[in-house]
């Protein structure tokens, strides 16, 4: 019951983002230069920012970006983890040790520098869409280690299980075992990881954009919109600037937390 209402609410929010073109009263980059810094009004439900852009419309478009970006990044992260975890589980102890070393190293290297390096190598005239895709691939690929650990452990446990033994006993080829036995077996772990990672990547994008290296202007994303936090002493005076975003973020991420188990845990 709770689960279905969570699904419905999440879908509604996602739909609002996806159909922002139709729902939003203004474009995300439209500047009404005669009316900057407005309080909420009928024309601008959440007021306008410094450049006279409608905050409500930007929130809708930002929701679209963040809600599409995070699951995509999570999927990438899981793909990397599966490739690595599956491979090492098969290839034996030596490789497993090597891959856990790689994972440890990934965790210790200054991620920010890797991000800067890759970003600095990009061509200049990339479209907003491309910049989103790149951001997503980057944070997805860089944040695979936690997922790799869990999935690796899952594959390991499966390989020791009776039904794989049974499959081996019947003389199935390793490839076939991988596809027919292992993949379906590991699927619940993957799905659980996916749900776990989506909020992580919503956060990652936000943290990245707080540094000014996320989705580039004028395209809004939750992280970009959160940058209002930089002038945090102004927040209490103008609650409509951040409160709706905060509520939306907490709502969506709580819904994500409820979804997989059907209960908040």
């Amino acid at each position: 019951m709770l689960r279905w209402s969570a699904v419905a609410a999440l879908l509604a929010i996602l739909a609002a983002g996806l159909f922002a073109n139709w729902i939003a009263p203004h474009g995300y980059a439209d500047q009404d230069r005669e009316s900057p810094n407005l309080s909420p009004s009928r024309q601008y439900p959440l007021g306008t920012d410094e450049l006279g852009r409608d905050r409500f419309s930007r929130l809708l478009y930002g929701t679209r970006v963040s809600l599409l970006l995070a699951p995509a990044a999570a999927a990438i992260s899981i793909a990397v983890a599966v490739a690595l975890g599956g491979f090492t589980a098969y290839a034996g102890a030596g490789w497993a040790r090597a891959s856990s070393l790689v994972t440890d190293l990934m965790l210790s290297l200054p991620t920010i520098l890797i991000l800067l390096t890759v970003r600095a190598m990009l061509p200049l005239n990339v479209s907003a869409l491309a910049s989103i895709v790149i951001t997503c691939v980057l944070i997805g690929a860089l944040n695979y280690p936690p997922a790799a650990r869990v999935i690796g452990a899952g594959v390991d446990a499966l390989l020791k299980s009776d039904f794989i033994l049974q499959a081996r006993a019947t003389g199935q080829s390793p490839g076939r075992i991988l596809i027919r036995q292992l993949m379906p077996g590991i699927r619940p772990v993957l799905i659980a990881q996916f749900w776990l990672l989506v909020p992580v990547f919503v956060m990652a994008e936000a943290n990245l954009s707080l540094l000014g290296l996320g989705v580039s202007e004028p395209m809004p994303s939750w992280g970009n919109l959160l940058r209002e936090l930089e002038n945090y002493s102004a927040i209490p005076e103008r609650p409509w600037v951040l409160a709706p975003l905060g509520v939306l973020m907490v709502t969506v991420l709580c819904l994500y937390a409820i979804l997989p188990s059907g209960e908040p845990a």
Partner: protein
Amino acid sequence: MALRFLAKHAVRLVLTVLIAGLLGAALVRIAPAFGVSEQELDPRLSREFVQGQRPEPVGILRYYGQFLYGVAHGDFGESPSLQRPIGELLRERLPVSLENLAFGAGAGIVLGFLCAMVAVVFRSPLARAVPVASSTVLLSLPSAALGLLFLLAGWPPAMALTAVVFPRVYRYSAAVLARSADASHVLAARARGVSPGRILCVHVLPGAAPQLLAIVGMAISLGFPALVPIEAVCDSPGVMQLALKAAMARDLPLLVVLTMVASVVVLIGNAAADISSDVLRRES
């Protein structure tokens, strides 16, 4: 046996740290704008002057060799961007970060464990609802935003780390304790009328101890990187703030040392998890 086990882990730790340092050096070296200084933009300074400020570029391996030789003699080298000895910087800043980590992550762990225990012992809806709700909300806020909010409230940055660590610790430990409390020997003890406190301490906690230890390890390896945005926004003079500055300034020697420090922390976190899972395997 135990000695060999420890020795194996120690060797592994040293090796990983050494490789991490080398990789860190290589990463900085190939990163864009290595050797660029902001002074180049200053029109008052001539090209020759700015170039003279920069140390001669050396090969990575050669640099690393010299660096390790220095470390063996207790010298970590000098940070070009801050123009101070790295050993001194670490002495000043590492305690700050470790303090943040110890108090912040420590409080998060204790709070998470306590809430999980309370939820397991008193199975009242309230005992669950409060930590579940608070942890869900805390999980939905980026650590940088948490840092800013705590700064705004005038609370120490370590508390922001608590807010990052607590919800995760609570979730995992509540699950672990619940599983441990479901064991039939716990049920049997309850059926004998043993008091809840004794059930928790004697029957539930020992069974869950290895996994709880793993959670402590997780909290450390999770809390350490979370310190980067927190120290950055809260202006807390720790090593993670230093790491961000070093990355921005492409400070090769400093980043190499900091990468090694980070790898030690990550490995200690992992070792806690590994050792406890080894213990677990031997138990079963």
